[in-house]
């Protein structure tokens, strides 16, 4: 089942990027992130790196013991966001807003690194940025 999910995810990512032009990097997302398991985090955005070839959201997540861990969460390039009508300000949401991110953890064991699939905001609206 896990293998099938992995293959399906790899195929989806491949087909999504297959028609991409010269500007897109073409290493596999599945080569960095574990597509066999989807995780969910809740927290507040502390910083956004609006850079190529991937944007990054820094999410402060409160742990069970009350400590806070900052996660670095990779996403699609700025131009893809722009083509979809999503701005940096829209990603940021309201100040202090608790958002939920569904994503994938890094395969290489790096702590607190993940890939974003969907961001959901407090009022329920969401941005589906990638799929698994």
């Amino acid at each position: 089942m896990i293998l099938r999910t992995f293959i399906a995810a790899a195929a989806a990512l491949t087909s999504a990027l297959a028609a991409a032009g010269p500007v897109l990097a073409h290493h596999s997302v599945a080569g960095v992130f574990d597509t066999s398991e989807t995780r969910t985090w809740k927290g507040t955005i502390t910083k956004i790196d609006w850079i190529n070839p991937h944007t990054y959201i820094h999410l402060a997540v409160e742990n069970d013991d009350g400590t806070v861990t900052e996660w670095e969460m990779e996403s699609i390039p700025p131009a893809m966001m722009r083509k979809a009508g999503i701005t940096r300000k829209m990603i940021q949401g309201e100040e202090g807003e608790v958002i939920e991110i569904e994503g994938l953890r890094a395969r290489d064991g790096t702590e607190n690194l993940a890939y974003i699939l969907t961001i959901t905001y407090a009022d329920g609206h969401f941005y589906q940025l990638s799929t698994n």
Partner: protein
Amino acid sequence: MTNRLFASAGLAALLTAGAAMAQERPDLSGTWDNGGGIGFLNPQNLEGQSICVTGCPQPAAAASGGGGARPAPSLPVYKAEYQERVADLTERQVDEDPVLRCLPPGLPRLGPPDKIVQAEDEFVFLYEDVSGPFFRMVPLNAEHREDIDPSYHGDSIGWWEGDTLMVETVSMTDDTWLTDNGAFHTENLRVVEELSLTDDGALQWVATAYDPEVLEQPWRLNPRVSPHADWEIVESPPCIDRSLDHMVDDSYHANPR
């Protein structure tokens, strides 16, 4: 005397008409939707301000693609003695591809311009690329410069052949690839681009790469057609890769054009 005046007036009229005809070139200026490398995206606005970027259920019409839609892929054919090198670079492209390290794509990998500024004696090509914001100056009916060093996107000159703008580029470093899959080239690479308007006013771009030292034959890319865009290009955010250090394998996906 009357005849001489008449002939003189006729000659002037002909010259004026000729000059006018010489200036009646297609207007290639404007912003063109070449897909920006993401022509396959058909994002959807959902209820409640939600947006789906990838993996969205697509209506049949949208799935056919807009700007940047591509025909079957085309790849350069190398001489037999270089095919092993290309195969090796292909296998290790996650480690070797300069674009993955945010270097400029070079030509023809850069693709058609995102914006064209057209003047009587020169063109300016502008690009909003993941690797950076690039520009190319294309003087018309000029000679190639000999006072500049090789660069990623070289030295370009242009001229009109009928209604087609021809652009020849030389003096490129060998740090770039022609396309994905280990398509290396030498510093003797010469690229000729043909830009014209289709009947419905879209920009058609075709490029041919000449590198006889390593290519079995000139590589002519598939034509790409870009409709006029209703947006303005913006400055590309800086390209700073953070992914490659976290790759646990060399998996990659096809990226044909």
